[in-house]
């Protein structure tokens, strides 16, 4: 298990937890359960966790696979700098967010799942991983060589099409006099 980046699994787990927290919260509010305030909190917390976890991090080794349409989320998450880059912060953030979910049955599952995600993020942080945004690669154009200063503006002079077609059969007839001079010492 040498090469594993725990953050990748933590990310999947946290995203799933966000969705579960959100669902539990919606059920609690819609059903007007006792303690529905915790459910309303869970809806907000679930949405927040999903937004935070949706953009995947760039992998340290290997190709990173983006989630569909994650670019705008990447930009938003990137602006928080070290707060989102550091996985210790994320681990403690998730641990703190999940606590109020434990006070109501509908959100307990989301709470425990998010707690597990927090633990995996802690493992990732201890191993020195951090979040890197996946940004589109800028195209670098190769510098044009010195000798190419003035590319030709016009195409080279060519005989009219009828003469060109004759070339296949007869070598003699296809020779012609160029109307324009093509040597450059004039």
């Amino acid at each position, binding site marked *: *298990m040498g090469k594993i*980046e725990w953050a*990748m699994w933590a990310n999947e*787990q946290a995203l799933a937890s966000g969705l579960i927290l959100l669902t539990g919260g919606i059920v609690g509010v819609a059903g007007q359960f*006792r303690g529905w305030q915790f459910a309303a909190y869970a809806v907000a917390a679930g949405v927040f966790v999903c937004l935070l976890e949706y953009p995947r991090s760039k992998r340290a080794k290997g190709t990173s696979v983006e989630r569909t349409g994650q670019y705008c989320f990447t930009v938003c998450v990137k602006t928080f700098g070290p707060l989102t880059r550091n996985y210790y912060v994320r681990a403690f953030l998730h641990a703190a967010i999940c606590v109020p979910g434990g006070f109501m*049955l509908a959100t*307990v599952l989301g709470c425990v799942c998010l707690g597990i995600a927090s633990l995996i993020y802690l493992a990732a942080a201890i191993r020195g991983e951090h979040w890197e945004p996946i940004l589109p690669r800028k195209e670098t154009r190769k510098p044009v060589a010195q000798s190419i200063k003035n590319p030709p503006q016009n195409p080279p002079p060519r005989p009219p099409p009828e003469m060109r077609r004759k070339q296949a059969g007869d070598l003699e007839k296809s020779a012609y006099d160029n109307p324009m001079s093509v040597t450059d010492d004039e």
Partner: protein
Amino acid sequence: MGNFVANEGLSVFAILVWLGINAFLFVHFYMAFLVERWYYTRVLLGQALPWARAPAACLNFNCMLILLPVCRNLLSFLRGTIQCCSRTAARQLDRNLTFHKLVAYMIAFHTAVHIIAHLFNFEFFMDAQLNRNTSLLTFVLSEIGNGDNASFLNPIRTNETNPTIVMFTTVAGLTGVAITLALILIITSSMEVIRRSYFEVFWYTHHLFIIFFIGLVFHGYARIVRGQTVASLDTNKPQNCSDKFEDWGKNGSNCAVPEFAGNPPGTWKWVLGPMILYVCERIVRIYRSHQKVVITKVVMHPSKTLELQMKRKGFSMEVGQYVFIQCPSVSRLEWHPFTLTSAPEEDYFSAHIRIVGDWTQALYEACGGDKNEPQEAWKLPKVAIDGPFGTASEDVFGYEVVMLVGAGIGVTPFASILKSVWYKRIQNNQDVFTKKIYFYWLCPETQAFEWFADLLQSLEGQMTEKNMMDFLSYNIYLTRWKEQEAAHFRVHHEAENDPITGLKQKTFYGKPNWDNEFTNITSQHPRSKVGVFLCGPPQLATSLEKQCMSHSAADVKFIFNKENF
């Protein structure tokens, strides 16, 4: 349309049957809780009761199914038995992992419905205990069974608690939480990203299914869902007595106090069979792994490919099968699948292993690959083999005309087929059903040709000798090259033998034009079934599948088979 049916018909039918059974179970068990026996339970819970019980029945069904597609020894055995009856049916067994995933998604869906319904149930049960008003039927019902603690209806026995505490103090609640957590962890670690990059995390976390099944079996143990007993229905008919609840059990009333009991747990009846089958499957794997396997030869090929030639007593294989290899000195718990590259006619079996990860790298070092001098035979590590297991390539000799497409290392199953063809046709002069093979090899680098080029060269030589050049038509496509290599190819364009492979057949550059190839084959072989076998990346699979569908006409049918690893 007809070619779609030929290619996909049986799969679609199987999926429809499975969905149909799910729908039937859902509706049937929903209706089963609308009967009189559950009348008083429904007074407390409303429709949330059947909404929880119906997905529970579907969960029983799907949890029974989920273990079956991963019993690969059983499937291999079934495949061999069905093969004689119907090749199409045998092909369906190749899609076992897809079916396993579909069933898993269905389990996740039904779990969600079940949990949401039970959230409402807990809330309603709690409501009934909290509204302590004897003029409410719900409260009267909740008070039943306070004396003997056996005939109660409401599993929440007091109002000094809350649903969360109740969940953690009941067998059903605890097992429910445990198995749901196990399920969520299994699902998140099975996402494609995790599975492809860190197989070990996926594999070890997946073993949480043991907790899942144990919890599932004990989930209904405490009989928490209770309905009126049959005896009680005689003394208290809900239609007549439900509004006279204030007089139950009193003198002069003909309604006794109703009594309730829970259903005996039924999940074990569904899952016990598959659990036993799966245990047998694991025992078979362990038994096979203890049979002695000897490495007879280790060859290091360029392009970081290691060839292991092995022998095991009583080993027999078919073309294109694969085995799982374990090397205890590298890792005691890891088994990795590799296609067999040897033919059944040879006295050893071999696998070509590409060195990509830490397991393969450690295996390479254990076999002395990094040392320059040859190793002593006794220094080679002990290995264990599970298999061989059948895959699509077994069917090759059942078709008259065959198209084999391999991309890069995906050519390995076809190495086995071509060797077998050579042995059968040329050495033993047997008559094989297959009359023509079209072989396409797509490769990104030139060195990868080396170990395979030897085989092709000897095949070419033998075929020229026996004047059978048109039995096998092979096309090698180099899909990537460097500038210097391109110059070399241009210069040697007119040479008799190909500059890369040394074969008479020239290498092509770039990717093949499949439309042309398929049209060519259609015109050469009217009125035949052409088997198309691919081992390669998914994009190539989609484009080949499309070509198969579009070129299948009334007389020529292209049947597509894909290896899945």
